């Protein structure tokens, strides 16, 4: 029930944000459609199980984002340095690497893949079951994987074990 209410409130806030109209007609249409969406797909947005409440999981995701953004900034500066370096070809050493992840939930794997692709210097090429194929621009970018990012995604999205 709590996840239903949370989904409904989130949807309604998004509706109000996009419509920007506060008269009775627009609000009631919004409430109606948010109720329908909540009924059909309330288990998609917030996820929880017996070991771990949905609120805990959502807070984990919220805590993960600032860290991810900081990683993106740092990695962007590194790539900017490589791009602008006069002897750029000596600095880069592209390679394909493969590693196995301990993440189980599909959404956690996708989040890790997107995070890897977002941080410059690494692109996730493929996920096959628990096998990640990543294309890295430099040796150091390749060696930093999976490492801390996987741990943090696991903390944010995996049920506690």
């Amino acid at each position, binding site marked *: 029930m709590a996840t239903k209410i949370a989904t409904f409130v989130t949807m309604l806030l998004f509706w109000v*944000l996009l419509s920007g109209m506060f008269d009775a007609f627009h609000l009631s249409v919004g409430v109606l459609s948010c109720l329908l969406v909540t009924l059909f797909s309330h288990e998609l947005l917030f996820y929880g199980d017996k070991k771990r409440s949905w609120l805990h999981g959502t807070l984990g995701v919220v805590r993960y984002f600032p860290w991810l953004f900081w990683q993106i900034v740092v990695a*962007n500066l590194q*790539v*900017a340095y490589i791009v*602008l370096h006069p002897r750029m070809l000596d600095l*880069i050493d592209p390679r394909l690497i493969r590693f196995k992840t301990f993440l189980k939930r599909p959404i956690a794997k996708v989040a890790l893949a997107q995070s890897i*692709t977002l941080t410059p210097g690494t*692109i*996730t090429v493929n996920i096959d079951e628990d096998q990640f194929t990543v*294309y890295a621009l430099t040796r150091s970018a390749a060696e930093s994987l999976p490492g801390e990012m996987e741990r943090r995604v696991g903390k944010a999205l995996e049920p506690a074990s």
Partner: protein
Amino acid sequence: MLWIAGSLVVAGMFFFAVGVIGLLRFPDFYTRLHAAGKCDSLAAVLVILGVALYNLADFSLASLLVSLKILAIAVFVFVASPTATHAIAEAALVIGVEPWSKKDQEQ
């Protein structure tokens, strides 16, 4: 406020410029994909933040809603950009585009 917004946009433009330079300088398809797909993520977000902040200069409910919508663009970019990059990279790998490596340089 105007100064912060301006410097965010200028910083974003710097990263866009780096992305373009990288696109021209890198040796092969995959490394160019790095430059194109990556610098864009931060650069676009910086520019979007700057524009959203600039829009808040005369504060009202309407301008706040518009700024939040602009921020929603940043969220979509964050989801769509890596997905596209990943799709292009995998397509190239499936077709069999050879990656550049250190050995090619020495020959």
